C-alpha cells in the first residue's frame, strides 16, 4: 500500500465535472507536482483529498487508512497539512499567533505550542515578523506564514497550493531550497499544485497532469514535457516546438 492512494475520484459540481475518475499514488518522501491549466480541477482534487469536498465516488487512503469523506480537521489530524493559494488577509492575529494555532493541533499546552511555533518560524527565517499582522506583510512573506502554519501541525504529507505564485525568481529560488530542505531534513512528503513550470521542473520528482478534470499524464518531469497530450492541452504546440 502506498503512502497516499487516490482511486477513481469523481467530483461533479451540478453538471460540471471537476474531477473525473482520477487515480494515482504517492510514496512516502516523494515530491510530486500537480500541473494543469487553470480550472483543470487541481484545487478540486486537493479539496477532495483534504476533505473540503466529499468526492461523489472514489476512495482516498492515507497511511493505510481510508480517509474518504473525512472533514478537513480530521485529515489534518491524520497527518495531512495544506496551504492555500490565497491567504485571507486578516487582522485578528499576529504571525506568531497564527503559527501557534497550527502547533495547538498537536499539543494542549500553551508554552509548548509557543515553543514549537517559534521553532518553525526560526526555521523559515520568519522570527523578525512574528509580531506583525498578516495584512502588514508582503505577499511572499504571507505565503511563508501560511507554510509555517501548516508545518506547525507536523504533517507527514504537505499539500501546497501554488506556493510560488506571485513570487519573483529569487524568491522562487528560496522556496525551492526550502521545500527541498523540508523534504530531506524533516521527511515530509510534498504534493504541490504549481503553475510555474520552472519551479515544477526543478523541485518535483514526479509530475501529474490534469486537464479538464481528467488525469492525462503522470511521470518524470523530463518525460512530461515531451508527452504529446500534455503539450496539446497545456504547454501548447509552440512550446513543444520551441523545445
Amino acid at each position: 500500500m502506498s503512502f497516499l492512494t487516490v482511486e477513481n475520484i469523481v467530483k461533479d459540481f451540478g453538471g460540471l465535472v471537476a474531477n473525473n475518475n482520477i487515480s494515482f499514488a504517492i510514496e512516502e518522501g516523494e515530491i510530486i507536482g500537480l500541473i494543469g491549466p487553470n480550472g483543470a480541477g487541481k484545487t478540486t482534487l486537493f479539496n477532495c483529498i483534504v476533505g473540503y469536498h466529499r468526492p461523489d465516488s472514489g476512495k482516498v487512503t492515507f497511511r493505510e487508512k481510508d480517509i474518504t469523506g473525512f472533514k478537513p480537521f480530521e485529515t489534518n489530524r491524520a497527518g495531512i497539512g495544506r496551504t492555500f493559494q490565497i491567504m485571507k488577509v486578516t487582522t485578528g492575529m499576529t504571525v506568531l499567533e497564527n503559527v501557534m494555532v497550527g502547533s495547538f493541533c498537536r499539543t494542549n499546552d500553551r508554552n509548548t505550542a509557543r515553543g514549537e511555533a517559534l521553532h518553525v518560524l526560526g526555521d523559515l527565517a520568519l522570527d523578525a515578523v512574528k509580531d506583525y499582522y498578516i495584512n502588514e506583510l508582503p505577499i511572499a512573506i504571507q505565503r511563508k506564514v501560511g507554510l509555517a502554519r501548516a508545518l506547525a501541525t507536523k504533517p507527514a504529507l504537505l499539500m501546497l497550493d501554488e506556493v510560488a505564485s506571485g513570487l519573483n525568481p529569487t524568491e522562487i529560488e528560496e522556496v525551492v531550497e526550502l521545500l527541498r530542505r523540508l523534504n530531506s531534513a524533516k521527511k515530509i512528503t510534498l504534493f504541490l499544485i504549481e503553475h510555474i513550470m520552472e519551479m515544477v521542473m526543478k523541485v518535483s520528482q514526479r509530475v501529474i497532469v490534469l486537464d479538464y478534470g481528467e488525469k492525462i499524464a503522470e511521470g518524470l518531469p523530463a518525460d512530461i514535457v515531451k508527452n504529446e497530450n500534455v503539450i496539446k492541452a497545456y504547454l501548447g504546440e509552440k512550446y513543444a516546438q520551441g523545445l
Partner: protein
Amino acid sequence: MLKVSEIEVRYSGIPIIHNVSLVVNDGELITVVGANGAGKSTLLKTIAGALHTSKGTIHFGNEEIQGLSTPEIVRRGITYVPEARLIFGPLTVEENLEIGAYIVNDAAQKKNNLDYVYHLFPRLADRKKQPGGTLSGGEQQMLAIGRGLMSNPKLLMLDEPSLGLMPKLVDEMLGAVAKLRGAGKTILLVEQNVRESLELADRGYVLQTGRTILEGTGNELLNTESIRKAFLGL
C-alpha cells in the same frame, strides 16, 4: 486613448502595484502578461475604478479618470469583463445582456448590440432564455464578454477570458477576441496563455511584482529571453 502613468495601488495599506505605466491607442489590442499575483487584475480593476490609485494618473481621452467611481468610468466608455465572470446566475442570458446595456438608453442601439453579440456568439442566442448560472464555463465567458459589449465600450478590458477553459474553447475565445479587434474595437487583454495572446496582440506589457518590466510588440516580447524563461518554461 488610455494613458496610465506611474501609478501605485495599495490594498489595505500594502502596495500591490508599485509603478506601472501603459498606453492604449485607438483600435489597438494590448496584452498584459505576468505571473499570478503580479498585479494584472489589480491594474485592470484600478482602471475600471474598482480600486483607487495612491500615486500617478490615468487619462482616458483628455480626462483624468483616477478617483472616479466604476459607474462613472463605464459611462465614459471603459467596460471591464472580470476574471471571475460574475454572471447574474438566476437571470436568463438575455436579461444578463440587457443589464449589460444599462447605460445605453437608445432602444435601437440596444437591439443592434444584442444582435451583434448573438452574431459573435451564436451559442448565446440558442440559450437566451436559460438562467446564466446553468451555462457551462465557456458559455459563461461568452456571456460575460457579450455583456461587456452591450454597453458599447470605447475600450473593452478582458481579464483572463480563457481561464479554466478546455483548449478548444480557449482557441474559440481568443478567436472571438481577434474578431473583435478586426471589427475595430480597442481591447486591453490580460491573459495567462502568454504565447497565443502575445501573438494576437499589437503590443504587450510584462508585469512583475507590481511593476512594468518590459514592453514591446507581441513578437518582440515573445523572443525576449526572460519571457521565454519565466512563462514558456524554456
